[in-house]
């Protein structure tokens, strides 16, 4: 049964020190407000999982919440580099960051395996690349029918998944639409899940392209209007492309990032 509570309480319930946690959202519906609350609550030693660790993970990494990053593309989309991510990888600041690096297809299938209750998934992936040499998550597997060699990847099981959605009803059924990414898979891969929403409504009227997560797979719902900013929520807000560009300057050096962080924690 879903607990509907405040964002601070929900984050405290769902995200714990040392967790393997995914904040998902493929450009759209990124749960920034929940990420900021994790920073405020001072979580540490997180293994952060995300296909595209963009600005939200730059912030969590810069704030020292992360010990490890599992990902497939770490950049500021349409802008450039993630400076806090680079500083952590290149100089160990504010703390060393272990990385486990995959391709998008590998990551997506690792979520699919976990959501499906399987220990692994099969794909044609990463062939001819240096990725397998630097990852324990890519192994060959032979088709028992054709003898063909393919790629096996292990399930990406999560302690916690955090996603943002347009809305929930009072039972905790969740509805999201537009680009829905791997959010369903992330929630179904997790022991605990938190969904922040733009609004809570009496009835979820059907919407074209919507994914519905029934309440019995959602642990916590928290109202967080605008909680995807600077990402967006289709039908509620537009992407704040200017902020993504400003982030390049904010994050470029440790001092200006420090000011941003103090402002957030005030």
């Amino acid at each position, binding site marked *: 049964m879903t607990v509907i509570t405040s964002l601070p309480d929900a984050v405290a319930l769902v995200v714990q020190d040392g967790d393997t946690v995914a904040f998902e959202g*493929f*450009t*759209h519906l990124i749960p920034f407000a929940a990420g900021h609350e994790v920073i405020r609550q001072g979580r540490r030693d997180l293994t952060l999982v995300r*296909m*595209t660790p963009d600005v939200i993970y730059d912030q969590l990494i810069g704030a020292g919440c992360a010990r490890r990053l599992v*990902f*497939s*593309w*770490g*950049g500021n*989309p*349409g802008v450039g*580099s*993630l400076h806090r*991510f*680079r500083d952590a*990888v*290149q100089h160990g600041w504010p703390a060393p960051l272990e990385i486990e*690096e*995959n*391709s*998008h*297809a590998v990551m*997506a*299938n690792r*979520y*699919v395996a976990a959501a499906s209750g399987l220990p692994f998934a099969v*794909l*044609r*992936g*990463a*062939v*001819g*690349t*240096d*990725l397998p040499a*630097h990852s324990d998550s890519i192994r060959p597997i032979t088709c028992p029918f054709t003898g063909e060699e393919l790629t096996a990847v292990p399930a990406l099981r999560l302690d916690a998944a955090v996603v943002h959605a347009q809305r929930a009803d009072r039972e905790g059924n969740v509805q999201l639409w*537009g*680009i*829905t*990414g*791997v959010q*369903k*898979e992330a929630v179904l891969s997790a022991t605990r899940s938190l969904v922040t929403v733009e609004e809570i409504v009496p009835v979820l009227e059907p919407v074209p*392209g919507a*994914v519905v997560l029934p309440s019995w797979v959602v642990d916590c719902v928290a109202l967080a209007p605008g909680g995807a900013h600077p990402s*967006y929520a*289709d039908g509620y807000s*537009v*992407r704040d*492309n200017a902020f*993504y560009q400003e982030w390049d300057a904010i994050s470029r050096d440790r001092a200006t990032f420090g000011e941003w962080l103090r402002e957030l924690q005030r």
Partner: protein
Amino acid sequence: MNYSADEMMTVAAARALRDRAVCFVGIGIPSTAANLARRTHAPGLVLIYESGCIGAKPTSLPLSIGDGELASSADAVVSVPEIFNYWLQPGRVDVGFLSAAQLDRRGNINTTVIGPYASPEVRLPGAGGAPEIASGCRSVVVVVRQSLKTFVDGLDFVTSAAAPRMVITDLGVLEPSPSGELVMTSLHPGVSAADARAATGWDLAMADDLGVTSPPSPHELDVLRSLTHR
């Protein structure tokens, strides 16, 4: 009509797409080129973005692969696992459009690190969809600026074994010889073979029938500028 080297590169990349082709597009110059093609000679071009948008028809250039208009203008929006498993992996896509931080003489691509993996000089974004775009699409076109920094003799990391049918740069066009090594097959107007060789970290071969790229037409430039200046 004056044009920049990047404009020439983008126009040449757009021309590499035939009408009604199904094209898997990344953000940046590949997306600009694909949208230019759709507005000029290839109105039936099908654009697929890894965010799950199939048949996107954006009216302005997206800043990210997850821009709202990609979804709202698409024929179908599917999940990210589905776009990779049902649509890319089985070879349904004609052309994959990739960029690169480093490219070697066989067209392999690095977008992962400059320097050693464990202690990189520059940590780049990483693989994203590229390894499986490279292996899953029927053909791959790489669009990248040509310089000693990008056209290197050995990659620091092989992110994608791309084996492109065409590499389009700000200097010209390269295609693989029968042996698989990239050979310059066309130079953009005003670019010399020496210019291209000076921007390449290996001993770059010129094709016997080395041509000169047709310059951007006024129409191509008009449409390109209306896209990028919007």
